[in-house]
C-alpha cells in the first residue's frame, strides 16, 4: 500500500512528461488556426500552457492533492465527476466479463487436465489458443454481426441494461477465459501427479472430496493470481470493447481523450487506471492469505 504514493507520483510525472512532449500545439488544436493571436494568448494563460513545465506539474499535483483532476479542455466539465459517472459502467462491464470468464475458464481447464492426450484436451487447447489469437476488435465486430444483425438478439451498441451488456462482456471475457483455461490446465495436471493425490485415493476418499479438497483447493492460488493479473487485460480490452460497443465507460473516455488530446482527461484516466490496478493486486495478495493460511502477509523475502 505504501508503494502506491511513489508509484502514482512516478506515473503522473511520466504521463505528464509524455503529454507535454507531444508534437503540436494544444492551443491551436483547441481554437483552430484562424483565431487571433490575442485569443490564443488568453486561452494559453487560462489553461496555464505559458508557464514552465515544473510549474505546471506542481500546479497539477496541488490540484490532485485536493482531489481535483482539473476539467476537460473541450467540455469544461470536471474530469473527476465525469470519471465518477463512467466508472460504475466500466466496473459493471468488467464484472460481467468475469462472470463469463471465470467459470468457463476453470471448467475448460479442468476438462483438459482430466483428459490428458485425448481428443477433449486437444479441443480445449485449440479453443484457448484461438481465444488468445483472435483480436478483440475483430471478435467484437463478428459478435455484433452475428447477434445483432443476423439473430437480432441484442442491440448493436449503447449503454444500458443487461441486453446492452451481454455482447461487450462476452467479447471482453474471451482472452481472459483462454488464459485462465491454460493456467488451470497446467496447475491441475501438476496436482494430479502429486503423491498426496495417490495417498488420498489409496485411503479410499470419495472422488468428490479428492476433487474438492485436494485438487481445487490447491489449484486456487495460481487461478486467483491469474484472475487478478487479468484485470490488466480487462483495462486493455475495455479501451477497444467500449469504443466499439459504445459503452459509456472509462475505456471509451480514455480513447476519446487521446483522439482529442484532452490532457486532463488522459491524465485522470491513467491515474484512475493505476490506482485500480494497484488495488486489485492488493486484494489478490490478501486473498492468498485466505486461501492458504501458510502464506503470511507481513513476511516479505525481497
Amino acid at each position, binding site marked *: 500500500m505504501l508503494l502506491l504514493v511513489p508509484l502514482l507520483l512516478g506515473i503522473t510525472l511520466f504521463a505528464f512528461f509524455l503529454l507535454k512532449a507531444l508534437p503540436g500545439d494544444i492551443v491551436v488544436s483547441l481554437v483552430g488556426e484562424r483565431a487571433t493571436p490575442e485569443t490564443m494568448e488568453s486561452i494559453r494563460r487560462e489553461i496555464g500552457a505559458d508557464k514552465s513545465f515544473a510549474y505546471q506539474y506542481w500546479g497539477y499535483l496541488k490540484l490532485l492533492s485536493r482531489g481535483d483532476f482539473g476539467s476537460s479542455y473541450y467540455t469544461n466539465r470536471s474530469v473527476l465527476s465525469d470519471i465518477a459517472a463512467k466508472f460504475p459502467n466500466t466496473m459493471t462491464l468488467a464484472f460481467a466479463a468475469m462472470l463469463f470468464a471465470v467459470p468457463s475458464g476453470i471448467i475448460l481447464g479442468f476438462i483438459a487436465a482430466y483428459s490428458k492426450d485425448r481428443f477433449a484436451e486437444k479441443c480445449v487447447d485449440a479453443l484457448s489458443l484461438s481465444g488468445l489469437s483472435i483480436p478483440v476488435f475483430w471478435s467484437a465486430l463478428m459478435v455484433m454481426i452475428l447477434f445483432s444483425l443476423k439473430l437480432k438478439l441484442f442491440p448493436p451498441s449503447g449503454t444500458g441494461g443487461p441486453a446492452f451488456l451481454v455482447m461487450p462482456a462476452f467479447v471482453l471475457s474471451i482472452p481472459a477465459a483462454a488464459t485462465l483455461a491454460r493456467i488451470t490446465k497446467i496447475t491441475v495436471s501438476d496436482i494430479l501427479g502429486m503423491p498426496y493425490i495417490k495417498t488420498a485415493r489409496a485411503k479410499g476418499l470419495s472422488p468428490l472430496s479428492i476433487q474438492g479438497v485436494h485438487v481445487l483447493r490447491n489449484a486456487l492460488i495460481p487461478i486467483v493470481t491469474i484472475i487478478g493479473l487479468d484485470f490488466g487485460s480487462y483495462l486493455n480490452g475495455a479501451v477497444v470493447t467500449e469504443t466499439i460497443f459504445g459503452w459509456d465507460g472509462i475505456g471509451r473516455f480514455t480513447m476519446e481523450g487521446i483522439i482529442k488530446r484532452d490532457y486532463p482527461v488522459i491524465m485522470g484516466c*491513467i491515474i484512475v487506471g493505476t490506482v485500480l490496478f494497484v488495488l486489485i493486486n492488493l486484494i489478490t495478495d490478501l486473498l492468498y492469505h485466505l486461501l492458504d493460511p501458510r502464506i503470511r502477509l507481513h513476511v516479505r523475502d525481497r
Partner: protein
Amino acid sequence: MSGTGKAALLVLISVLTLSVLAPLLPLPDPNRIDLDSLGKPPSAGHPFGTDNKGRDILSRVVHGGKLSIGIALVAAFASAVIGFAVGLTAGYFGGRFDAVMMALVDFVLSFPSLLIAIAISVLLPPGMYTVMIVLAAVGWTSFARLIRGHVLTLREMPFVEAARAVGCSNARIIFLHIAPLCIPLSLVLIGIKLGGFILTEATLSFLGLGVQPPAPTWGAMVSASRAYVLSSSWMVFFPGAAISLTAFSFNMLGESLKKKYDAMKYS
C-alpha cells in the same frame, strides 16, 4: 516438432510467401480506387469483395501481410536483443543493476500494456517505425526476465567456475560460455511472442496509431471498414480472419517449440 507445429509452420510459410510475392501475383493494385465497384460483396471478379473505396479486398489482404508480419518480426528481434543484453548482465552481475532492472520489468509486465503502447504511440509520429519501437519497448521485458533466470542457474555451473579458475575475464565468460546457451531459449521465446506482436500491431492500427493509410495493414483495414460492419460484413471479416489465422499459427508454433525445448531440457 509435433504435427500441429509443422502444420502451423506450413501455414506461416505460405502466408509469408504469398505476401512477399504479392506484387508478382495476378492481383489488382491494392490501392487502386474503383468508383464503379464501391462496396461490392464477394464475387468471381473480387473473391473477397471490395471495400468502401472500391479497392479489391483480396489483394489488400495479401499485400497487407508483408507489413504486419514484417513489423512483428523486426520488433521480436529487437526485443530479443535488448532483453538478451539486459538479462545477461543483470543475471550475471546481480546487485543493484539487477534489482532496478527487474523492478522495471515487473512494472512493465504487470501494467496494462496497451496503455503503455498508446502513450508511446501518441508521443511519436505514427508510422511503421513507431509501431516497432512500441512493440519492442513492451516486449523486451519477458525476454529479460527469462534470460536472467536462465543465467542465474548457468552461472553456478561447474564450467563457469572452471572458466573463472583458469582466469577468463567476465566478458569472455558472458559472451563465450553463457550467451550461446541462452540462444535456444531466446528463439523459443521469439516464437511465443510473435503471435502477441501481430495482435498488438493490429490493435494499434485499428486505433489509428499504427501504420498510416493508404498502406494496407490488416488492422487498419478492419478499422476503416468498421462503420460499414452492419451493412457489408465481408469488409471486416477477411482482414480480421487473416490476423487471427496468422496469430494462431505463430502461437501454435511457439507452443510446439516450447514443448520441444522443455523435452530437450529434461531429457
